[in-house]
Every structure is written in structure tokens, then in C-alpha cells.
């Protein structure tokens, strides 16, 4: 039973030391070769303590066992060096007294750290046990002079580091392998230093620099091999390799594509063609040495895709050819890439000449046309370019990833580097520190961002080390995460703690972007602490212009006005404004947004709730910024009723109010008011407020555009109800009637779009007035009274005043403008019985009583029903007449010079085309199909489809076109802030206007042309359907 108790104790020990698969570990501890080296493994064997230090003791143990096997096998073959290595291994793994042998302890720690963090390096050690020398020699792998690294790599291929143009001994496969072995040898040294560091985050920049230097050395050696492969060693060509990306920034990953650009020049006596031909050969051969098939694993792909014209361009170019390309053709992103260019291998002078030549171009890129749009598009690519499946695991891409940090820093460099050479470093962390030192960003925030960056990079390094694979994905398995946590010194926090910290970092990177970019725009007078930066006016203007403000000077003024001073209000603005400046910049009119915000804040700044709301509700602030910078209409509306800002915090407040609630409010207004004008002003204010609410809701996507029109109509209904009551009151007073017993009952019948509850922001209210004399009243008195009331309604609601008017239009009445404004019920009955024409029946399809005596309204409806829903439909002559009228309307109503394809109301396939089609179907079939008895266009359209009068796809075509045209009419108002006018119903041709309108319809940025194409297509299709269904044209 002895063995059982021993096993149990070893198992317990292993468990305590952090081994996960204890059974397997116990089994491994009894491995023949392992025990041959370290002796029998008792629970207190020193090797176990050593293993426990590593990131993954299980992995380290397995690798150690394999290493012992390899050492034994090697020693068995009789190699004296091998025997020595085996002994050394035994000493290291069995030594107990730590204090007396700190060097040896350090070596042992290096060994288990590497084995516990990297399967790939463990395999490398097993394959080449002689690499134990590297572990044994505790010289640090980081902070090594780059020349020493270069020399080491060149020596490996038999080239002379001191030669002007080093050439390798030959280009045989063995030499290629030598480059790769030398590379890995040094990589092992770097990894050993990195993995045993107490503070991996502090060491990170040095590690990344060491890897970049090693890559540079490898490129140099590969170039030497490439030259050896050419007959005359390419002596007529000077070739420089420029490192780009992380290689250029001297901040390379363990495993990454190495981005380069090649420059060549002929030496005296050779021509350019020679230089290009031979240079191309050298460059391709260099890439093969690094990544082609060979006995040793490839290093990394050498990627020259950042060169002019990308993959389609020539692999090498002369300096002048590079420069002339960049002078004329390069895109903004290419300059951002060039910011990183650094000579890494080959001809040093030529490399320096290249950097000198492109530097001025890089630092004037910000002056180029389209810089703003390009950089915004680039930013979107950075944020959005993440495959959905990886979104939660990406370290590099996506919001809060490494690329995000780099982008932020580079954009700041491009904006300010033009005037300040001090911040032009190609290294992300150095540049960030320089930006802080020069006062372009706050020190505190810059330091925080640097920590985030180091953290993300450290994680990335550790993940890549495991298999030496290029990956930027967080692992998913518990074991992998645990190893990762332990390898970055988060032993206690474990996998959960690591993930939590990572999430925090990602969030921080986002908010730090805002802080770094926008906070320094606040003027110095608004500075909160010495840690914060404030840009000089020129720098502030440059930054504002770079993010899309068209009037940076004005913007600087507004920012100062908002944040100056010591008031609490200014203090909160200083908190809020930086991030809002970014949000304004995303809208279609940043300047307009900022200006409107300033106005609003001037108005409301002292109210207790306004700033508090914006500060405490992130969504309210974002929504406000979006609305103000996308819609002049809303900017204006919120300016008139600043209290509306409270809605933004709550979707329920943004939902259109039901009409019943509005009527109650109107009733309260009328009951309270004693002065009629005052009452009407309040009613008009109510409507203005509801329109603003609906506009906000529509723009914010809280309600669909389809729900906006009924809400807008409800507001008009309410005003009509109230307006009629006021008018009745006033007229009774004036004409000496008893208000309780007026000479006539009155009703207002909504027509047109109001009747269909399809009103837009700028629409008039089409109505009919009807009255009916009270029993015993004199008909002529009743008529006089009713006429006065109708006139008064129009005057009260339509007159200009402090609140927006509602134009009440009664042109659809019998005999049009020549007929009396008001008719009695009997007069309508007689008229419709005798004279009515087809177009009147058609107009009556929209008739809906909205205000006044409900009973009279019902009687009116009953009166017109037989006209608009005629029994047996229409006779052919009437159908012909309606078609003829439509054809004439098409020819005559369109404003002179208007393009029919772009007129949203009367144009080809626009609103009117669809409505007439539906109305014709209603006139023909409503008597038989009850569903068609509706005033709404879409309701009628759907009823016609359900009744089989219209084929489903035709109905859909018409609906899409009608809806899009209606939405566009609203959007034109929302975007421009102008209702009415000659251009209101026309799809703008101006690119800026189109892009702005497209934004209000939730198209992605810069989609004006898409919107235009979508509308033209929808309308064309609708017209085809309309011609077939309405005009009855056979196909």
C-alpha cells in the first residue's frame, strides 16, 4: 500500500501546484527518460515547484518530458556536447538551494516559462536541443543594439556586416535554413526575457522593438542571400527595404506579416531598366528566402501590398517614380500608411532619401481634397470590418481594438504633424507620448490609452506565442484563457478576471478616443486641470476641419462660449461637449448642429434639468446631437420649445400622442382661456409641439415614417376642433346669438391628405364647411352666421402669428373658388344630387368629418356615400372622363421646367399617380367591397389587393413608390427646415442636399446617389403599374 499513499500525495501536491490534468501529470512524472534525468519524482521534488511558476504547468511538464527524451536520445548517440546538455538539464531541474545559485534559478525559470507559454518554442527546443544554450545564457534578448542583431543575422549566412553591400556565401537551401534558424534562436531569447519579466506591460515596447529589429536583421540577411543568387550580385542596383506598418513603427508582433516597400536606384554606369529588372528579382527572391518552402518553417510572409498601385503595381520602383505617384495619385490612407515608413534593410542612404522625400507629402495630406471624407470612411472600416462570428473575440479590429488605438493616434498625428515635427514618430506609443508632451491631448488620458494599448498588445503577444501563429482572436477554452491570464501576471484573477479587464479596456479605448480627440478642443479658459490639454486656436481649427466642420472658426467661438466661465453650467458643458462635438461631426451638418446646440444651451443653460438630463442620460445627449446636426427643421423646432429636449430621454415621450389626449388638452386650453387670440395661439403651439415630437421620433427611428403622417394629421384635427369652437364663440358674441343656441350647427369635413390622415410637415388642411340651421332659425341668419364662423376659422388658424399657422383651404368645395365658402346640408344635398361631376365624387372619397357637430358630420357622410361608393361602380364614360382629367392634370399642373421624374407629388409614378389609381378602384368597387370604403391611400390599396382587384406585386410596387415619395417630401422639409416653396416637392439634384436627405432616411453616410437611384426606380415601376391599372393600357 506504500505506492498508493505516495501516489495520492503526489496527486495532492500537483493539484495544489495548479496542474489541471493530474492523472496525466502523474503518469508523465514516471516517464523513463524524465526520471533518468531528474530522478524519481517525489511530491517535494524541486522540479515541481519550478513548473508551478509557468503559465501552464501541464504544458510545461509535457514539453519538459519530451525535452528529456530528446536529450537522452541525443546523448545515447554519443555526442559529447549532448551529454553535457543532459547533465546541465539534470542539475537545473534537481537543484534545491535557490539562494546560492540565483543564476541557475533564473535559467530554470526561463526554461519552464518558455515551455509553459509556447508549444511552438517547446517543439523547437525538442527538435534542436542545442538551443538550450540560449536558455542557459541569461543575457537579455531585448534592448540589444540593432547593429548587433543585424551582424548576427548576416554572419549566419556568411555575409560581412561591414560590407557596403553584404552578400551571402551562397543561396543554397542550407543558407536559407540558416537565416531561419538564426531568426528563431534570437526569437527564443526574446521570448525568454519577455516571459520571465515581472512586468510584461512595461517591457512590451522593448519586446516589440526587439522583434522589429530581428525582422529587420532577417530581411537584411535574406537580401544578402538574394544577392548571392544573382550572377553579378546585382551590383548595379541599390535597393532599400522600407518597413511599413508595425515593422516600420518598430512595434512588431511575434507573428505578423511584415509590410515593406522596395526602392531601387541604378548605380553609375547602369540604367534604370537594369535597376528595375534586377531589383524586382532581388525583391522576389528576398520574399522567398523568408517565406518560401524550405527545410525550416517559414518566418512570415513579406507583404509589399502597400506599394503604389498595390498588388497591380510594379514590385520595385525608383525613388522618383515613387514620389511622382504619391504627388498625384495616392489616396489618403496611403499617406497614413507612409507615416510608418522606416528604412529597415538594404541601402541606407537610399532608404533615408525615400523617407525624406515622402515626409513632406505625408504631413500635408491633411490639406488634400476629401481628406475628411476619406478619413471618416477609413474610421468606419476600422470599426465595422469585423466578421460577425469574431466580433466578441477580436483584439485587433472593431471598436476598442488595437487598430482603433492606432487610428486615433495616426489621425491626430496627420492633423497636427503638419505644423509640428515633434509628434511625427512612427511608433504608436512614442507618438502618443509626444502628442501629450506637446499638449495636443491630455496627459492623463494619453497615459491611460497607452496602458490599454500595452495591455492589448501583451495579450496578443501571448496568444501568438502559443503556436507562433498569426492570430488576433481571444481564445475560448477555459484552459487557454487560464494560461493567458497567468502569462500576463493575472494569476490570481484567472480567466474571468482577464476577460473582465479586457472588456473594460475595450470600453476605455472608445471613450478615450473621444477624450483625446475632442476634449482638447475646449479653450484653455475651460481647462479643468493641469493634466488636460487645450489646443492653440490654429491647432483647434485644424482638428475641427479634419473632422468635417466647414466653419472651424465659428465652431471655436461656439465652443468657447459654451464652456467659458466658472459656473456650474460651464463645468457640465465641459464634460458634455467633447463627445457631442464628435457626434455633430457624424451628422450631415456639424456646424448647424453645434450652432443650434449653443442656442438651445443659451436658452436652457440655467434651467436645472437641461444639463443634468444630457449629462446623466447618454442617449439623450447623443440623440440631441444627431437631431441638431441632421435636421434643420428639428433644430428650429427645439429652439422654439426647448423643453422638448426632455422627450429625448424616454421613447414613450417621443411616441405620437393619441388624438383623444390631444383633444382633452385642447378642451382644457379653451376652458381656461378668456381671450380668443390667446386660445388660438395656444392651440397652434400645441400643434407645433406635436410636429416637433413626431419629427424627432421619425428621425430617431422611434416611430416609422408611416406612423408620422397620422400623428401630424391628428394635430391638425385638434387645432380644427379647437379653432371651430373659438370661432363659434366669437361670432355668437359679435352677432348677438346665444352661445348655447346658435342659429346653426356646424361641421368641418376634412378632405385630401388630411381626410386620409396623410398630412406632411408642410401640408395645408383641405376642408369643407357644412352647416344646418337649428330648428326654427331663419335660414338666411343661419347662413350669415355659418359664413362668419368659417371665415373666422380660416383667419384665426391661418393668420401669421408667433406660432406656426395652419392654412385652411376650402377649394374642393362645390363650384370651387366661385362657390360659397359654406353651404347648408340641404344645399350640399341638392348640389350633389344634381350637378356633381366625377372629380367631386373622387375628392369625396377622402371626406372625413373632423370637427363640430358629430351628428351633422354623420349625416354628411351618409349623404356623400352613394356618390363616392356608387352602386354598380362607374359607367365607361365616367371612367374615361376621370382618365382624361388625370391626363390633363399631368400635362398642366406640373410646375414649368420641373423634371417629371423628380417631382414627388405630380411626377411620373409619384404620389398622385398612386392615389388616382387607388381612387379609381375605390369608385368602381367600393359599393361591393366594404374594405375599400376608407379615406386612406394605403388602406385602400391593401383592401384592393385583398379583394383581388390588384395583383399583390402591383400593390407592393405602388405602395413602395407612394411611401418613398411621401417620406421624401417629409425629409426635404426635415432636412432643409423649409416647408413649402417651389422646391419642396422636388427631389433635389444637389449632391449635398441628397446626402443630407438620405441621412434623415437612415441611409448610410454618402448614399445620396443610392437614394436618387432608388426613388427613380421605384417611381418608374409604379408608373408602369399605374398606366396598366389606371389607364387600362393593355400590355
Amino acid at each position, binding site marked *: 500500500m506504500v505506492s498508493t499513499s505516495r501516489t495520492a500525495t503526489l496527486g495532492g501536491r500537483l493539484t495544489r501546484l495548479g496542474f489541471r490534468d493530474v492523472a496525466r501529470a502523474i503518469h508523465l512524472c514516471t516517464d523513463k527518460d524524465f526520471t533518468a534525468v531528474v530522478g524519481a519524482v517525489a511530491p517535494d521534488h524541486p522540479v515541481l515547484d519550478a513548473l508551478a511558476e509557468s503559465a501552464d504547468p501541464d504544458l510545461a511538464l509535457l514539453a519538459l518530458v519530451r525535452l528529456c527524451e530528446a536529450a537522452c536520445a541525443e546523448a545515447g548517440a554519443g555526442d559529447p556536447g549532448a551529454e553535457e546538455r543532459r547533465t546541465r538539464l539534470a542539475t537545473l531541474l534537481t537543484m534545491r538551494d535557490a539562494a546560492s545559485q540565483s543564476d541557475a534559478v533564473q535559467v530554470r525559470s526561463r526554461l519552464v516559462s518558455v515551455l509553459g507559454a509556447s508549444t511552438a518554442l517547446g517543439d523547437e527546443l525538442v527538435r534542436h536541443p542545442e538551443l538550450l544554450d540560449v536558455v542557459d545564457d541569461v543575457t537579455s534578448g531585448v534592448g540589444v543594439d540593432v547593429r548587433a542583431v543585424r551582424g548576427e543575422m548576416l554572419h549566419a549566412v556568411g555575409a560581412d556586416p561591414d560590407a557596403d553591400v553584404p552578400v551571402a556565401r551562397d543561396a543554397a537551401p542550407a543558407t536559407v535554413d540558416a537565416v531561419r534558424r538564426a531568426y528563431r534562436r534570437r526569437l527564443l531569447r526574446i521570448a525568454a526575457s519577455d516571459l520571465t519579466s515581472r512586468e510584461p506591460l512595461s517591457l512590451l515596447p522593448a519586446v516589440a522593438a526587439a522583434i522589429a529589429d530581428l525582422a529587420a536583421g532577417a530581411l537584411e540577411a535574406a537580401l544578402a542571400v538574394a544577392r548571392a543568387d544573382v550572377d553579378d550580385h546585382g551590383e548595379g542596383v541599390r535597393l532599400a527595404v522600407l518597413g511599413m506598418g508595425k515593422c516600420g513603427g518598430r512595434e512588431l508582433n511575434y507573428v505578423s506579416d511584415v509590410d515593406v516597400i522596395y526602392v531601387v536606384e541604378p548605380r553609375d554606369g547602369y540604367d534604370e531598366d537594369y535597376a528595375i529588372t534586377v531589383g524586382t528579382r532581388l525583391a522576389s527572391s528576398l520574399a522567398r528566402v523568408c517565406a518560401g518552402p524550405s527545410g525550416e518553417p517559414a518566418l512570415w510572409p513579406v507583404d509589399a501590398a502597400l506599394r503604389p*498601385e498595390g498588388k497591380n503595381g510594379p514590385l520595385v520602383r525608383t525613388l522618383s517614380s515613387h514620389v511622382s505617384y504619391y504627388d498625384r*495619385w495616392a489616396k489618403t490612407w496611403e499617406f497614413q500608411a507612409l507615416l510608418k515608413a522606416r528604412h529597415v534593410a538594404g541601402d541606407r542612404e537610399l532608404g533615408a532619401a525615400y523617407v525624406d522625400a515622402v515626409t513632406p507629402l505625408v504631413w500635408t495630406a491633411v490639406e488634400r481634397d476629401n481628406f475628411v471624407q476619406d478619413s471618416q470612411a477609413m474610421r468606419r472600416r476600422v470599426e465595422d470590418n469585423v466578421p460577425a462570428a469574431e466580433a466578441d473575440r477580436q483584439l485587433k479590429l472593431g471598436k476598442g481594438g488595437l487598430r482603433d488605438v492606432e487610428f486615433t493616434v495616426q489621425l491626430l498625428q496627420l492633423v497636427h504633424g503638419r505644423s509640428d515635427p515633434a509628434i511625427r514618430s512612427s511608433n504608436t506609443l512614442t507618438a502618443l507620448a509626444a502628442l501629450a508632451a506637446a499638449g495636443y491631448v491630455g496627459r492623463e488620458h494619453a497615459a491611460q490609452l497607452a496602458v490599454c494599448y500595452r495591455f492589448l498588445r501583451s495579450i496578443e503577444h501571448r496568444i501568438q506565442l502559443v503556436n507562433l501563429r498569426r492570430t488576433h482572436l481571444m481564445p475560448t477554452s477555459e484552459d487557454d484563457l487560464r494560461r493567458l491570464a497567468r502569462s500576463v501576471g493575472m494569476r490570481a484573477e484567472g480567466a474571468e478576471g482577464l476577460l473582465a479587464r479586457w472588456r473594460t479596456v475595450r470600453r476605455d479605448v472608445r471613450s478615450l478616443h473621444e477624450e483625446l480627440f475632442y476634449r482638447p478642443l475646449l479653450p484653455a479658459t475651460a481647462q479643468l486641470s493641469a493634466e488636460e490639454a487645450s489646443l492653440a486656436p490654429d491647432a483647434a481649427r485644424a482638428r475641427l476641419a479634419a473632422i468635417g466642420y466647414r466653419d472651424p472658426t465659428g465652431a471655436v467661438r461656439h465652443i468657447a462660449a459654451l464652456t467659458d466661465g466658472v459656473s456650474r453650467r460651464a463645468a457640465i458643458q465641459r464634460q458634455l461637449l467633447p463627445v457631442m462635438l464628435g457626434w455633430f461631426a457624424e451628422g450631415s451638418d456639424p456646424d448647424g448642429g453645434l450652432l443650434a446646440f449653443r442656442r438651445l444651451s443659451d436658452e436652457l443653460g440655467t434651467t436645472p434639468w437641461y444639463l443634468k438630463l444630457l449629462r446623466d442620460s447618454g442617449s439623450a445627449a447623443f440623440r440631441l446631437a444627431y437631431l441638431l446636426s441632421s435636421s434643420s427643421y428639428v433644430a428650429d423646432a427645439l429652439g422654439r420649445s426647448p423643453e422638448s429636449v426632455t422627450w429625448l430621454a424616454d421613447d414613450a415621450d417621443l411616441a405620437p400622442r393619441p388624438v383623444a389626449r390631444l383633444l382633452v388638452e385642447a378642451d382644457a386650453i379653451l376652458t381656461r382661456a378668456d381671450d380668443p387670440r390667446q386660445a388660438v395661439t395656444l392651440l397652434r403651439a400645441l400643434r407645433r409641439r406635436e410636429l416637433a415630437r413626431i419629427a424627432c421620433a421619425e428621425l430617431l427611428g422611434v416611430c416609422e415614417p408611416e406612423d408620422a403622417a397620422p400623428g401630424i394629421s391628428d394635430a391638425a384635427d385638434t387645432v380644427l376642433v379647437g379653432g371651430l369652437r373659438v370661432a363659434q364663440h366669437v361670432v355668437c358674441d359679435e352677432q348677438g346669438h346665444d352661445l348655447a343656441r346658435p342659429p346653426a350647427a356646424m361641421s368641418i369635413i376634412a378632405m385630401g391628405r388630411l381626410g386620409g390622415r396623410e398630412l406632411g410637415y408642410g401640408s395645408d388642411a383641405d376642408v369643407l364647411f357644412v352647416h344646418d340651421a337649428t330648428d326654427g332659425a331663419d335660414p338666411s341668419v343661419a347662413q350669415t352666421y355659418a359664413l362668419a364662423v368659417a371665415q373666422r376659422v380660416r383667419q384665426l388658424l391661418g393668420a401669421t402669428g408667433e406660432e406656426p399657422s395652419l392654412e385652411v383651404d376650402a377649394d374642393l368645395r362645390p363650384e370651387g373658388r366661385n362657390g360659397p365658402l359654406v353651404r347648408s346640408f340641404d344645399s350640399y344635398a341638392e348640389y350633389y344630387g344634381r350637378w356633381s361631376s366625377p372629380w367631386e365624387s373622387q375628392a369625396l372619397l377622402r371626406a372625413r368629418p373632423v370637427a363640430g357637430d358629430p351628428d351633422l358630420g354623420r349625416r354628411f357622410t351618409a349623404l356623400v356615400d352613394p356618390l363616392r361608393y356608387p352602386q354598380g361602380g362607374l359607367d365607361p364614360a365616367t371612367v374615361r372622363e376621370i382618365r382624361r382629367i388625370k391626363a390633363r392634370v399631368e400635362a398642366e399642373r406640373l410646375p414649368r421646367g420641373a*423634371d417629371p*421624374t423628380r417631382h414627388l407629388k405630380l411626377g411620373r409614378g409619384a404620389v398622385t399617380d398612386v392615389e388616382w389609381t387607388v381612387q379609381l378602384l375605390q369608385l368602381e368597387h367600393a359599393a361591393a367591397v366594404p374594405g375599400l370604403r376608407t379615406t386612406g391611400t394605403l388602406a385602400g390599396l391593401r383592401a384592393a389587393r385583398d379583394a383581388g382587384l390588384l395583383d399583390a406585386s402591383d400593390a407592393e410596387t405602388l405602395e413602395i413608390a407612394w411611401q418613398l415619395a411621401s417620406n421624401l417630401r417629409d425629409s426635404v422639409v426635415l432636412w432643409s427646415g423649409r416647408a413649402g416653396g417651389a422646391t419642396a416637392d422636388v427631389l433635389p439634384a444637389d449632391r449635398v442636399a441628397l446626402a443630407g436627405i438620405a441621412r434623415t432616411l437612415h441611409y448610410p453616410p454618402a448614399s445620396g*446617389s443610392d437614394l*436618387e437611384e432608388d426613388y*427613380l426606380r421605384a417611381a418608374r415601376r409604379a408608373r408602369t403599374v399605374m398606366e396598366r391599372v389606371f389607364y387600362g393600357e393593355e400590355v
Partner: protein
Amino acid sequence: MDRQQEFVLRTVEERDIRFIRLWFTDVLGMLKSVAIAPAELESAFAEGIGFDGSAIEGLTRVYEADMVARPDPTTFQVLPWRGDHQGTARMFCDILTPDGEPSLSDSRNVLKRTLTRASDQGFTFYTHPEVEFYLFEPPTAGGPLVPIDHGGYFDHVARTQGHDFRRAAITMLESMGISVEFSHHEAGPGQNEIDLRYADALTTADNLMTFRTVVKEVALEQGVFASFMPKPLADQPGSGMHTHLSLFEGDRNAFHEPGAQYELSKTARQFIAGLLHHSAEITAVTNQYVNSYKRLWGGAEAPSYICWGHNNRSALVRVPMYKPGKGNSSRVEYRALDTAANPYLAFALMLAAGLKGITEGYELPDATEDDVWELTDAERRALGIKPLPQSLDDAIELMERSELVAETLGEHVFDFVLRNKRQEWAGYSAQVTPFELKRLLQVL
């Protein structure tokens, strides 16, 4: 500056070019040209040359008059007829809006867009046109048209101008980098055919624009007069432009499948099905003039009916005889097209029709082996063979309803073509023709 642009600048310097003509094509396929001095070249590459587009057919919407023409340096070519010394060169242009977006109304851009769509599906599109045209004696005022000879198909007409003409034209084309496959006398008197070598569709379309100019220039030099009018002589065959089409996937001909019927792959069969299915609605573009329909319905070899056949010269789509071992030469021949078409738009539509067949997986109807012209109407109906539009009017009506044409051309070009063609038809219908006068004036 990229290599091509550098090459252009260098060549202009070395060869002492004094004028560079920037060529572009209006929506109807007419060549437009603006000449610039070499000093302007760099800025033309960088920013393009601004011009007032409203004066050019279909190029702009009225309110957007300013347009920019930016030369495509890969199309640089010295014009041989302007002489070697202090010469003239030309480049084709892309038309851009002032803010640098490709213009929606540029027909070259329409073709580019469609080619991009094809390449998104992994295809490159090659075309190979056979261009027919007539040579006449220089016209006298009011006199009848006199062809320069009385030869027929493949006739070797000794020592005529036609001979010299073809030699001169081909030499000039070759010197402009346009390879000629084949040339011979055609069936009509004075009628010639020159076949261009196959190339990708954009190059071919550019080449065709050049070709028409070259032929006109050479004719002038030789004291004759060339016309690409589809049907200049009522009793002689018209001039068409049979065009061979093929799709490649990388280096592989996607139409070829060894062992299949006629060695035609499924892709090819679906492509043909697409072409046939949409042929009627694209006719207003492939045969865009009133006169085009006099060729289409003038008998002889003209394809008036929508059907296909293997080596059937009366069918609309002909699958040429397969040559064993030449897998990459598999192709289909579309026979309706005439030389007066805008090649950019026509190629775009033929490609779009074929691609539609592939994406929708259209079934190819059976091949027609008979001479379709010999069948009676009832027989054709029984076989399900429909006619192409009988007139420009018919064609317009079919195009109006075509989603395929609208999507391919884009709403602007679509709208413009329709308006323009309606005007042409109205203008034509208003004519009182000699035919009517001769028939009716006396007897009525």
C-alpha cells in the same frame, strides 16, 4: 503618377506629339473629341478636363452641366493618319461629375459597372465583332448612291479601290494596336467586312470607336466614302455587326465543356438562354435607329426571329462549329447587333442578359435546325419562335418595360435613351416618304 501615365508623358515628349485628343462617347454612341496641348496632360490626368456636358447628347441632366473628362492612359494611341511628325494622339476618357464620382450617364461607365458585376461572379467577358460597312463613290448632291464595285461574298475583285482600301485600313488599325483577324468582300456591292480579334469587352468597345474613325479617315484618303448605316441600299444586304461572345473564368473558357452537346457548358447554355429571353427588350439599344429595322427585317442573313442553332445562319444566336482541341475558342455569336449601336451600352446589355440567364438558371430551348425564314408563321408559332421587334417603335415599347435594361443602364441613361428614341420615331413617322408619293400621289 502610375506607370501608364508616365509612359504617356514620355511618349508625348519623345514622339513630339503636339495635340492629344480626348475621346469619349455620348449615349447614342457618337464619338466626341476635345483636343488638349501636351502641357495640359498632367492636370488632365490628375483632375480631368472640365467641359459643359449639357451640349452633349444624354451626358448630363440639364441642371448639372459641368462634367469632367479624365483620360484613361491605358488607351493612349498615336493617330497614324495625322502623320509621324508633330503628330496627334488620343485617349479615351471616363466622364466624372465635378465631385469626382463616375458619371451615371457615361456609357463607358455603364459597361465598366456591368463588367464589374460579371467579375464579382468570377467572369471576364470577351467579344469579337465582325464589322460590315459599305464603300461608295463620293456622293453627289441628290444623286443616287454608287457603290465602288459590284463584287459579292468573298469575291476577289481585281485592282479595285476596295482592295487598297482594306489594306490601308488594316495597316492603320494594326499600327494603332488593334488586331484584325479577317477581312473580305461582303455580299453587297461595295460592301466589306473586317473582323477584329477578340479582346475583353471594354477594349473591344474602345476599339470599335477607333475603328469607325479609322475607316472614315482611310476612305477620305482614298477618295471614297464609307458608311456604317445599317441598311443604305434597299435591295442589298444590310451591314450588321455579328459579335462573338465568351465568358472566361480565369484562364478557362467557361463556355466549354468537353463531351457535352456542341461542347457547350451549362454556363454557356444558360448564357444563351438569357440572351434569347431578353433579346427583344435590348433591341432598342443593339439596333437603335429606325433604319436598323430595315436590316433586321430585310431578309438575307438578318436574324429576325428569336431562336438559336448550331451553325444555323438564320438563327439569332449561332453556336459556331467547334474546332477540336480549341477549348478556349468556345463562343456564341449574337447576330442582331449592328455597327451603328453604341458598343458600350450594347455589350453591357448583352452581358447583363447572359448573366441573368446564369444567375436565374434559365432553361435553354431546343436548338433550331431549320432555316427560320423558310418556316410559315404558323410553324414558327408552333415551335414557339417569337420575332424580334418589327420596328423601333416596338422595340422602345419592350425596352420601357424592361427591368433588366433599366438596372443595367441606370435610371438616367435608361430614361435618356427612351426619350431620344421616342423623338426619333416621332420624327420618322412625320415623314412623307418617296414610297408613299410614288404609290399614292398619282392614283389618289
